[in-house]
């Protein structure tokens, strides 16, 4: 059936472009807040080490932010290109939420990003700090709206359906704050902070392992591991609460995640691992702990739990994917918890910067936040199948009337372009990370042409042109205004 193929290809395209895209906003959310903290600490304490860290991480921020912008642009048009029926039907509800994202977040970020990257000398440190705060606020507002839209698709509320089959708003309060939204927002913002902290900690750990132990490296190692210590347990609690919310509103998704193909009237086991056989509708070679599933989900050992055998087969999510992605996410979360606790124990014993095992662990853990984020999104999105708007609009009935060859061509094009462009981008980020942050750190683009020409080390060019000038912008000679 050609129609089915086009839908599957459109889903593959969404998963592929989204899988790439999501990494960048996660880092942007985390790094923007981190940069705001660093600049705030610099302004209040006057310690040079924070300014150097700021200048170090803003370079990485600007590369990842740029990649986030262009990959996000693709996402915003994909609703129309591959999912036009969804756009027509859910547009009146999802559209305004995304337009609010543009109005409140994207303009704020892009409007102040220029000042943040290029403008310190022109506006002075205080206004520059406001620009950094504006960008950080923008990233969080962006998360707010896009997660509201996504959550509405998972747990739709506050709507009616009109004669044309469109979802129409009845209560915006119920739409924006739909049942799963607060949980998903907290879970995702924590995930962004935690993922970024693990990256920062991993970079610091690598420099410590290589004996490039500047004050900046030590400070960011300490800051990052404080975040892991504090946020990993919080994230596990938030994830548990999110799971209970899902059990209430999307029990079928939980059945898939737990690998419960059959119902358990007298208490369900916790399936640790096993091989889900979707066609046969059973778990093979499952390693289970009896009754623990009911204890976790219902807080009672004998609580009955329905399985997928109580649901028509055409409404099943594809268990083999979500069963495993969920376990990857949870497994990594506990590894993060262990890292956080180990760092706390070593910190209390004064061995934070010397314990090689901790540094190796932090280095290995660096990408795990991002891996957990992608695994988590696969769990929640594949778990929503076979619907785009849960229980109301089927995925198969959401796609554009576009022929499969068109979808496969665009998918292949995106695949090639993404690997080239974002592959290069990741390489540039790694190259920036290879150098440790150090005293006299250069801000982004500072003397870029000089540096690349290799004539003068940029910080030596103009002392007044480094980031730590306190001179008000107006003291600089004003460039001549064009005269007609």
């Amino acid at each position, binding site marked *: 059936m050609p129609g089915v193929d086009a839908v599957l290809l459109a889903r593959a395209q969404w998963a592929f472009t989204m899988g790439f895209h999501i990494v960048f906003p996660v880092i942007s959310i985390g790094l923007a807040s981190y940069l705001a903290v660093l600049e705030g600490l610099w302004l209040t304490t006057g310690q040079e080490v924070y300014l150097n860290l700021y200048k170090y991480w803003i370079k990485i921020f600007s590369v990842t932010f740029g990649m986030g912008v262009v990959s996000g642009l693709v996402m*915003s048009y994909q609703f129309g290109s591959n999912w036009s029926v969804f756009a027509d039907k859910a547009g009146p509800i999802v559209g305004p939420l995304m337009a609010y994202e*543009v109005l409140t977040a994207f*303009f704020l970020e892009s409007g102040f990003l220029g*000042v943040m990257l290029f403008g310190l000398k022109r506006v002075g440190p205080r206004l520059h700090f406001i620009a950094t705060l504006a960008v950080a606020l923008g990233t969080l507002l962006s998360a707010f709206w896009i997660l509201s839209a996504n959550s509405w698709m998972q747990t739709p509320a506050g709507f009616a359906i009109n004669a044309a089959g469109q979802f129409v708003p009845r209560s*915006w309060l119920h739409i924006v704050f739909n049942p799963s939204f607060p949980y998903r927002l907290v879970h995702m913002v924590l995930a962004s902070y935690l993922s970024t902290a693990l990256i920062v900690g991993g970079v610091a750990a690598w420099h410590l392992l290589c004996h490039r132990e500047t004050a900046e490296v030590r400070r960011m190692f300490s800051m990052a591991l404080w975040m892991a210590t504090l946020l990993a347990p919080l994230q596990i609690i938030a994830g548990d609460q999110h799971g209970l919310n899902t059990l209430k509103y999307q029990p079928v998704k939980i059945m898939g995640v737990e690998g419960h193909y059959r119902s358990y009237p007298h208490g369900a086991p916790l399936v640790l691992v096993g091989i889900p056989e979707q066609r046969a509708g059973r778990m093979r070679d499952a390693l289970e702990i009896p009754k623990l599933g009911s204890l976790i989900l219902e807080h009672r050992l004998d609580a009955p739990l329905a399985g997928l055998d109580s649901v028509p087969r055409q409404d099943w999510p594809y268990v083999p994917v979500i069963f495993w992605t969920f376990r990857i996410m949870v497994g990594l979360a506990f590894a993060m918890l262990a890292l956080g606790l180990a760092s706390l124990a070593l910190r209390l014993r004064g061995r934070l910067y010397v314990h090689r095992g901790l540094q190796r662990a932090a280095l290995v853990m660096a990408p795990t936040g991002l891996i957990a984020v992608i695994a988590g999104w696969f769990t929640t999105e594949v778990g929503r199948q076979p619907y785009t708007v849960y229980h109301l609009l089927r995925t198969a009935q959401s796609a554009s009337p576009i022929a499969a*060859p068109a979808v496969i061509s665009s998918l292949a094009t995106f695949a090639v372009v993404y690997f080239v462009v974002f592959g290069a981008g990741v390489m540039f980020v790694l190259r920036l990370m290879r150098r440790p942050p150090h005293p006299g750190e250069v801000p982004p683009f500072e003397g870029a042409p000089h540096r690349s020409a290799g004539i003068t080390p940029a910080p030596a060019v103009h002392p007044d042109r480094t980031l730590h000038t306190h001179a008000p912008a107006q003291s600089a000679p004003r460039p001549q205004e*064009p005269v007609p």
Partner: protein
Amino acid sequence: MSAVAVAVGSPDIVLSYVWAGIIAFAVFGYIAMDGFDLGIGMLFALFTTEQDRTHVMNSIAPMWDGNETWLVLGGGALMAVFPLAYAVLIPALYTPLIAMLIGLIFRGVAFEFRWRTHRGKPYWDAGFCLGSTLAAFMQGVALGAVLQGIHVQGRHYAGGWWDWVSPFSVLTGLSLMAGYATLGAGWLILKTEGELQQRAYRIARGCGIALFIGMVAVSTATPFLQNRYYQRWFAWPTVFATAQVPLLVAIVTALFFYGLHRRWQRAPFLLTVALFVLAYLGLGISIYPYLVPESITIRAAAAPAASQLFLLIGTAVLVPIILCYTGYAYWVFRGKVGAEGYH
């Protein structure tokens, strides 16, 4: 506005026209602002020394991201308030839009990437130039494809994925390229001085000639695409009103070339923007009251009033604020740009 309509979730005619105006404004904001930086991307190939390239790139580096946000707003708001038009137009423009996005990807990352590599720099520079060119061309093609009419059945696009190709859409693509290049040259005149600025004047002259030829060709061809366009432009006595548009185009064009000749600094850019306003007005005259020419009107495509009103409140509050801080950002980076840029 009618509280009743809000309650029943049906469209409201006043709101719909207000929104059509806002989206027209957002799209124009995009064309004028991203237009000049896409134009500079296209002209990038003409500048070969590293110093000139740095100058040229620095003149737009702090703004391009904000400029492109208007494109996201146009897409997002269209889906929110005219979902049917969005659901028909985007699949109809599938190929040109994806090509445009690919172009914008290469163009956008070049701002960061070219500073981060020695060996790779020529490739990212080429990506910057070709990406900008591809994006500009495909935007023009998309415009031509919409103007020449697209095949709609019920609530769906019913054509193929190559329907957009025609001599007319290629012509609009090339014309928009010329227009953006002229805007870019005008921006360079504003932002540079000395030898670089003199070159920008010469480039603006060449691009301006191409733009003028493109405008004449597109304007001549458009009325013959659809009978209704012809009626709209040449019907008696409204022809006296519509004739003002080409008349003004002629006056503005003459002023543009005179300004170049006299080495005015701001006028070339502003007069090119004025030409875009006139071309946009002409477009509106042809298309109104349709969003998808000949098949979907503003009324038919409208989302329920509750959607339009909800977003209108935010827009009324936020867009003035956005314009303020966008203006502030431009003001921070005002004046001539040097090889060290704004740092």
